[in-house]
């Protein structure tokens, strides 16, 4: 039953195939077809949502995909509360971005190819979230990896774009390496890779003592995909791709796959405290680390990229401390406002003839009012100003983090402060202050067409309203006094909750923490206000005073160069040596020299044939003597 569920992933696939094959003929209409395909799958997702709302989990197997020996993997779909939330985000935000792309990619030469890749991405993402076993998760995992490779490298004529695409795919592949080993461990210990199967025999994993290693390896895969330290290096460069791509893939959906995986396998992760601790540590470190880099960056999209890495760090803190629902909630709200920020940035670039350097912007508020307004709403949401969604989701995580360990809360708070600061810096430099736009660009700044602004407005509404469904219990006396979002997801995390003792937050502590986070957010904004609007503190002066720190930050801690020199070059040099020395000199040398030796031997042997009859006779006599001697002394 519920066979309709397969329509959801197959519609984008169909769209991708149509656009792929007939893209160059469809030209303009490709965008329309792609958007319709995503809309249909969104509508069916809503229908599935209502079914899941009243408690039934949809499980439907189409055919057995791989069956060899005792390893079986079915092409089956499991839609429960967690996946329906993800599907709503993916198809909803995906649809808005498709509509936005119609405007943004207007006039592009190979727009058919673009929308085909975009639809293919959505298909892979849906398979990732809807699959009922690890192998389909892996399918979706690599599928989105390829689509991000293709979309980042969409402007392939630019050397940097194709390089960034390759870098993204290889970084993901390193993560997938860990993910694959994780799957092998699980399969070889309990013989099945379906979620239900793993959940059922998770204590067998515990007994075999492989839970920690499996969890950590799976987390390595998550780091690769969700750009956590140390595998985050590809996300900033991924900004080479078109902005809707950054919005969809590198903000809303793909990067959250790691969080989804940890949430989906909550029963596994929860059983290994070490793994949870590692997740929290990496999450916190990445959150802070990325935030620091965002402070000094002047490229509008790269700032947002670092902010995404930082927010992902928060999500991992959430799932790391065991508050899976909070993590997923932040994932959802983040999808809304980060997509909005990216699309807004895209709109700004679009109207400023693709200018990305915020130092050449300013005072755009009056000229592109709708973009500015929606951008400001998203800014308030991400900074954690109530009643915007960002406040509720981030605060929920920080609250649980405090219970886990106050130190984590402190770092989280610092991160929140930095987030508020750099986002405000971004907004003030872009929309307020004096205009630093070149004159001829300034002449024809124009508001973007409705096809781009409407999605912005919808996302703005979502960023505002999104937070309400997850209002923490303390505040929710208006709506029946409990956190609707957490309750909705509770059955999925029942196993995890039952394992680790649920920790209750006293209301008083909750209010205190809320107040603290509001103050931090306002403090961050006020500091940015002082620096960039009132010019009370000259940012450049500070930059000079801490010039060393500033230089390190602006060069992104020299991580890229470090990886280049530390890992890539040695491998390339070693392979060169392998090829030139081992292959040609040693093996071929041996083979050819064997040939030469034989050749030399025969040349010598040939010399024996002198042509003199005497020599022949004497050789014969020597032979005779040898034989007779042999017989004498035998």
């Amino acid at each position, binding site marked *: 039953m519920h066979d309709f569920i397969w329509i959801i992933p197959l519609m984008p696939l169909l769209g991708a195939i149509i656009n792929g094959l007939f893209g160059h003929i469809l030209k303009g209409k490709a965008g329309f077809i792609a958007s319709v395909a995503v809309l249909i799958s969104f509508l069916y997702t809503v229908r599935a949502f209502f079914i899941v709302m009243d408690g039934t989990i949809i499980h439907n197997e189409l055919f057995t995909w791989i069956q060899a020996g005792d390893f079986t993997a079915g092409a089956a779909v499991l839609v429960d509360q967690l996946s329906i939330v993800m599907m709503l985000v993916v198809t909803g935000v995906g649809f808005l971005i498709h509509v936005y792309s119609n405007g943004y990619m207007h006039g592009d030469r190979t727009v058919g190819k673009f929308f085909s890749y975009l639809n293919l991405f959505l298909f892979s993402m849906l398979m990732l979230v809807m699959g009922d076993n690890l192998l389909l998760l892996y399918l979706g995992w690599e599928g989105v990896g390829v689509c991000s490779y293709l979309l980042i490298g969409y402007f392939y004529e630019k050397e940097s774009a194709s390089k960034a695409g390759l870098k993204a795919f290889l970084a993901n592949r390193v993560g997938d390496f860990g993910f694959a080993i994780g799957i092998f461990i699980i399969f070889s210990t309990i013989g099945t890779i379906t979620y239900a199967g793993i959940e059922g025999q998770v204590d067998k994993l515990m007994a075999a003592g492989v839970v920690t290693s499996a969890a950590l390896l799976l987390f390595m895969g998550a780091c690769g995909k969700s750009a956590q330290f140390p595998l985050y290096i590809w996300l900033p460069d991924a900004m080479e791709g078109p902005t809707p791509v950054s919005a969809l893939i590198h903000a809303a959906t793909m990067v959250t796959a790691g969080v989804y995986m940890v949430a989906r396998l909550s029963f596994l992760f929860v059983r290994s405290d070490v793994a949870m601790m590692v997740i929290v540590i990496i999450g916190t470190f990445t959150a802070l680390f990325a935030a620091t880099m965002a402070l000094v960056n002047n490229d509008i999209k790269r700032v947002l990229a670092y902010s995404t890495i930082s927010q992902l760090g928060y999500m991992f803190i959430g799932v790391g401390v065991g508050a899976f629902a909070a993590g997923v909630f932040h994932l959802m709200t983040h999808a809304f406002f980060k997509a909005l920020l990216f699309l807004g940035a895209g709109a700004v670039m679009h109207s400023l003839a693709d200018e990305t350097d915020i130092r050449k912007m300013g005072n755009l508020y009056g000229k592109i009012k709708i973009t500015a307004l929606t951008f400001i709403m998203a800014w308030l949401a991400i900074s954690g100003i109530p009643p915007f969604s960002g406040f509720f989701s981030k605060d929920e995580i920080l609250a649980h983090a405090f219970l886990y360990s106050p130190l984590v809360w402190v770092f989280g708070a610092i991160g929140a402060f930095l987030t508020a600061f750099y986002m405000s810096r971004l907004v003030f430099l872009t929309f307020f202050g004096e205009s630093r736009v070149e004159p001829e660009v300034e002449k024809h700044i124009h508001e973007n067409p409705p096809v781009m602004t409407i999605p912005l407005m919808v996302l703005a509404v979502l960023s505002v309203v999104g937070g309400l469904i997850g209002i923490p219990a303390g505040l929710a006396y208006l709506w029946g006094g409990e956190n609707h979002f957490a309750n909705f997801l509770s059955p999925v995390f029942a196993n995890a909750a039952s394992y680790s003792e649920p920790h209750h937050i006293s209301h008083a502590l909750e209010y205190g923490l809320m107040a603290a986070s509001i103050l931090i957010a306002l403090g961050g904004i006020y500091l940015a206000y002082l620096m960039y609007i009132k010019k009370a503190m000259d940012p450049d002066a500070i930059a000079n005073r801490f010039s060393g720190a500033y230089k390190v930050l602006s060069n992104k801690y020299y991580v890229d160069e470090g990886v280049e020199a530390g890992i890539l070059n040695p491998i390339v040099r070693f392979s060169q040596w392998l090829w030139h020395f081992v292959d040609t000199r040693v093996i071929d040398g041996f083979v050819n020299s064997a040939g030469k030796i034989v050749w030399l031997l025969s040349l010598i042997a*040939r*010399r024996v044939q002198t042509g003199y*009859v*005497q020599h022949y006779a004497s050789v014969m006599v020597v032979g005779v003597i040898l034989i007779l001697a042999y017989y004498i002394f035998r």
Partner: protein
Amino acid sequence: MGTLSIPLHYFLILAAVLFGLGVIGVITRRNAIVIFMSIELMLNAVNLTFVAFSNYLNNVEGHIFVFMVMVVAAAEVAVGLAIIVAIFRLRETVHVDDIRLLKW
């Protein structure tokens, strides 16, 4: 005719010595004809052995064999000298060292 007064191995040793001389002659001498003569010497050494054995064994096969060898040697001489004469006519030399076209 009584048994032979000279013991058998005397003959054998003589024949072996003759044979050795023939072989040395073939190796050392440079002139084709002289080489051929030393080969004949070797054949005669063999004849001597045959006769000695035949007498010692008191059967006639050895003697018959000697005749065969002589006949063959004669035929060989005919053909061999014909070749040597042909070479001499063409190359004015029978010096074996000069005849060295075919080598390596």
